[in-house]
């Protein structure tokens, strides 16, 4: 299902906010500057040809060490991701992150769905490593509330304008943001008792 018209419409209307757009494996992705997120989101929700009435998912990806981890570098002397008898697929689609520089460490990823038009779009907002902050969408979609709390909890991305930006899955008093790539997977913290 192709829905290029979504990214085409957004690009035509908000060219100053759009960093890039591409389609990968049949899924449409838009890259938006964080300054323009609210405008674009309002357009996606209210425009009758978009009508994205459902914020299906909101998450964040930490691109620190993307493609540079130990496991992505072959460790053996004869590295071949494909066995010798395999040829690469002829119709390889190329995928790029499309960010202007490596300073953008986080991508906040929104998956929108429209129940009226039955189409989806993925919107990504790259953020810099130091004090990542992005406007909250709680005023537009009620589901943003908990998703943003979770993203703050796991990645330390601040959502400005969020009514209640508390931790959701981890406990109050937990130090750090566990899904960041520089948070060690085996780090232990004492579990503090309940605050009440």
């Amino acid at each position, binding site marked *: *299902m192709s829905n290029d018209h979504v990214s085409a419409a957004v690009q035509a209307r908000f060219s100053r906010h759009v960093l890039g757009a591409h389609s*990968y*494996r049949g*899924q449409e*992705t838009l890259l938006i500057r964080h300054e323009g997120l609210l405008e674009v989101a309002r357009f996606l929700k209210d425009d009758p040809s978009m009508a994205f*009435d*459902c*914020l*299906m*998912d909101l*998450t964040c*990806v*930490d691109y620190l060490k*993307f*493609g540079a*981890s130990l*496991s*992505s*570098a*072959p*460790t*053996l002397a004869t*590295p071949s*991701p*494909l*066995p010798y*008898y*395999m040829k690469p*697929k002829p*119709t*390889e*689609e190329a*995928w790029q992150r499309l960010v202007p520089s490596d300073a953008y460490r986080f991508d906040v*990823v929104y*998956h929108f769905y429209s*129940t009226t038009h*039955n189409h*989806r779009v*993925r919107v990504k907002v790259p953020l810099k490593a130091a004090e990542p902050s992005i406007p909250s969408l709680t005023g537009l*979609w*009620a*589901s943003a*509330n*908990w998703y943003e709390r979770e993203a703050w909890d*796991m990645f330390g991305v601040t959502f400005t304008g969020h009514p209640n930006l508390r*931790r*959701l*899955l*981890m*406990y109050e008093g937990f130090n750090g943001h*566990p*899904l960041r790539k520089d948070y060690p*997977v085996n780090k232990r913290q004492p579990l503090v008792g309940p605050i009440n």
Partner: protein
Amino acid sequence: MFLNIGPSHPAMHGIIQLVAQLDGERVLGVDVEIGYLHRAFEKESERGPYNNVIPYSDRLNYVSPLINNFGYCLAVERLLAIEVTERCQYIRVIMSELSRITDHLTCVGASAMELGAFTVFLYMIKAREWLWELIELVTGARLTISYGRVGGVKADLPDGFAERTRRTLDEVRKVLLECDTLLTRNRIFVDRMQGTGVLAKDTAISYGITGPFLRGSGVALDTRKAQPYFVYDRLQFDVPTGRHGDNYDRYLVRMEEMEQSMRLIEQALTQLPAGAVNVDVEGRVLPADVMVDEAKMGRVAGFMQTRVVTDPTLEGSTRSHHGLVNAPEKRAVLPAKEDTYGNIEGLMHHFKLIMVGHGIRPPAGEYYSAVEGANGELGFYVVSDGSDRPFRVRVHPPCFPIMAALPKLLVGDMVADIVPTFGSVNMIGGELDR
């Protein structure tokens, strides 16, 4: 008055805390605290190779783990741009629908029990047991099944599965009919369910709610219909909807969905492409452990013609079935056991997929796979950086948005209504907290 319900409370299906603000018996406000079952699923997924996520995904929604398996496999398959075989797609549909029935049986049975209908609970759990026996027959396990594989499934359906499934479904239908007689016009049940936990259509969509919960509010949205995956577009089924968005309508939607799932299974069993099973007719049959011992001593000359007998939990995973249920894709699919132990190509192939530094390597990219879980849309957002480990695995759990909307559902109702409303949410701690 503040009333603390949970974290450990018999009416809370899992560990969750509700802090309810009460005026007499009326609920004025609810604060929902989750996270008690957080096991760092997403962080753990980034640690190991792609196939290591599959056993973890069993433990997300542990009442219908097969759907989680297939959802995750679908995302990785799309990243690799491979398509599973037709027979495998039908098997995935059959197993997903069996899981959906077990999930709905658990949900309806448990919430009926909490309203005093203990008999219904026992009947439904009995029916669920029969279905789990079917699942055990195929996967070798009842709950933590790890049946999905990237590019296929673990094993083919066993002999006589279709016949046995049809018989079981007939029995399940009888149980459902009986439960329907016990509940649907039962005065106590209807009084407790009707008009409680009401959620309007717009609010539900705004909260991102999907699945039976949304359909109970009158939106006929089903990922299987709206954006079909596997072979759902070839099968006939209806999407039941409610009108009032209350607990009673959600109960009716779930009961009807079980019937529709059975319809789907029966159609899929009829359409299931048989294909020629390439059985070697040399007649030599070896137990798997003997074959391993022989291979270790290098006596592999006759293995190309030998059939191996694996233990009962791995029935259908041998070479004769392998090509039918697994994609012809050597980048992702493990070879049959005969080949791994029997010839050097198979052994190398196995090595290339298993050993550290090799493994499945999708090209850098991202994919969000949406499948219809028992509670709603189950999404897996997988990001690959070209290595043998997923860079990021994000699960969109269907009961998460419903839990976020729980205060909206409960405010204005009585304290006693918390129990049926919370029961109809069908919260699964494993997928909620991950």
